[in-house]
C-alpha cells in the first residue's frame, strides 16, 4: 500500500532506476554523487516523504538510466541504507543494495586544510580503510577522514 501512496507524489517510470530510502537531508548529496545535474534524462524526485524506517525519506526516479554498480556504491559513503530498484516496463526487475567501495575518487573532501586537494585543482583519492563506520585515508596527504567529518564535494 505504501508504494501506491508514493506513486501519487512521485510518478512511476517505465524504464530506469529508482533510488529509495534516502534520508531526506541527504537528497542533494545523492544528486551530487550521481552527477544528476549533468544528465538530460527525465528525473523526478520527492523529499520529506513519510517513512517508518527513516522518519522522513527522499526518493529519486531516473528514466532510462541504469547506473554502473561502482557509481551507485559511492552513495554508500553518505547513505548506506539506500535501496536501488531497477525498473523495466513499470516492473521492478532487480533490487540492489549499495556497499562502500575499496577506493573513492572525487566525491568526498579531504579533512586536512593543508592537503594539496584542498588548495589546487587535484581530484581527491582515498583508500577506504574501514567501511563500517566509514574511514578514509587520503592517498596524497595520508590523513584520515572519518564518518564524522566526511564532506561531499558538489559537482556545481
Amino acid at each position, binding site marked *: 500500500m505504501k508504494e501506491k501512496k508514493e506513486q501519487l507524489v512521485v510518478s512511476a517510470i517505465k524504464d530506469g532506476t529508482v533510488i529509495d530510502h534516502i534520508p531526506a537531508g541527504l537528497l542533494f548529496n545523492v544528486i551530487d554523487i550521481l552527477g544528476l545535474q549533468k544528465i538530460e534524462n527525465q528525473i523526478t524526485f520527492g523529499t520529506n516523504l513519510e517513512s517508518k524506517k527513516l522518519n522522513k525519506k527522499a526518493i529519486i526516479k531516473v528514466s532510462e538510466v541504469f547506473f554502473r554498480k561502482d557509481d551507485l556504491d559511492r552513495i554508500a559513503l553518505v547513505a548506506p541504507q539506500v535501496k536501488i530498484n531497477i525498473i523495466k516496463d513499470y516492473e521492478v526487475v532487480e533490487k540492489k543494495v549499495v556497499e562502500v567501495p575499496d577506493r573513492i575518487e572525487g566525491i568526498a573532501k*579531504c579533512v*586536512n586544510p*593543508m*592537503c*594539496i*586537494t584542498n*588548495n*589546487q*585543482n*587535484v581530484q581527491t583519492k582515498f583508500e577506504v580503510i574501514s567501511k563500517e563506520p566509514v574511514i578514509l585515508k*587520503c*592517498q*596524497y*596527504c*595520508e*590523513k*584520515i577522514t572519518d564518518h564524522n567529518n566526511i564532506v561531499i564535494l558538489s559537482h556545481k
Partner: protein
Amino acid sequence: MFGRSLISINDYSKEDYLRILELAAEFEKNPKQNLLQGYVIATLFFEPSTRTRLSFESAINRLGGRVIGFAEAGVSSATKGESLRDTIKTVSNYCDLIVMRHPLEGSARFASEVSSVPVINAGDGANQHPTQTLLDLFSINKTQGRLDDLNIFLVGDLKYGRTVHSLLMAMSKFKTTFNFISPDELKIPDEYKLYLESLGLKYYEHKDFTEIISRADIIYMTRVQKERFSDPIEYEKVKNTYVLKNRMLENTKDTMKVLHPLPRVNEISEDVDENLKAYYFTQTLNGVFARMAILTSILGLK
C-alpha cells in the same frame, strides 16, 4: 627502487632500507664517484630549507651531476599563479629526476603522478620527509652496528613531528623498543601506539627525563614549539622539561648516541655538543651519503 619515486617512508620495504644503508656505507668509503656525470637533477624548493637542499645538491655535485632549480617559491613561476601540475609537467622535460619540497601535504605524491621522471619528496608540509628517515636509519645502524633489538627514546613533540612518525614506522620493521618522552599535549598519537601493539612491539610513555634514559641506545630529540600549545601557560610550564643537558648523560650507555633532525633551538644545551655521545652534526654528513645512495638507486646506477 629503479625508476620509482620516493614519496613516503612506507613506499620502501625493509629490504629497500637495508639496500640504501649498504649503498650509503659504500659511498662513505668512496664518495668521489662520477656516477651522475651527464645527469641533470632538478631541486624544486617551493619552501626554503637550507639544510635539506644543500645536502641534496652536495650529494649530486660530488657524484658529478648538474643541478637546476630554485631555492624558494618566490623565484619560481608559482608566484605567477602556475599550478604545481604545470610546473612539474614542464620541469620533468628538463631533467632526469626531481627533488621537491613543497608546503602543501600530498604535493609530492601528486607530483609523482604527473611527472615523467621519478620524484624524491624532500618534505611535503607536515606529512613526509623520507630521506631524513633513511639518513636516521643509516646513523643508527652505523653507530650501533645493528637495527634490531634497540631501545629508542623519542623526545619532544611526538604529536606533530613528522620525523618522529616516519622513524617510528621505519624502526617498527625491526625489533625495537620505544620510549616516548613528551608533554601531555604533544603525546604520540594513538594510531601509532595501536600500530606498535598490532606488531607486538613494546613502548613506554614518560612525562619527563628520568634515570630511565640509562637504558637508551638512541635518544632522538625534537623541538617543542610554542605554537603547538593551545595554552601558552602550559608551554611555559614544560618548556625546560625537555631540554637535554650534558650532566644528564652521565649514566647513559657508552655506545648511546643523541640524534636530532636539526635545526636545534634550545632543546639540546650546547654543553652536550662536545660529548662523544652527541651525534647530530655527524648525522648531517650521513645525510649526504644516504642521499647519494637514494639518487643512484632510483636512477638505476647502483
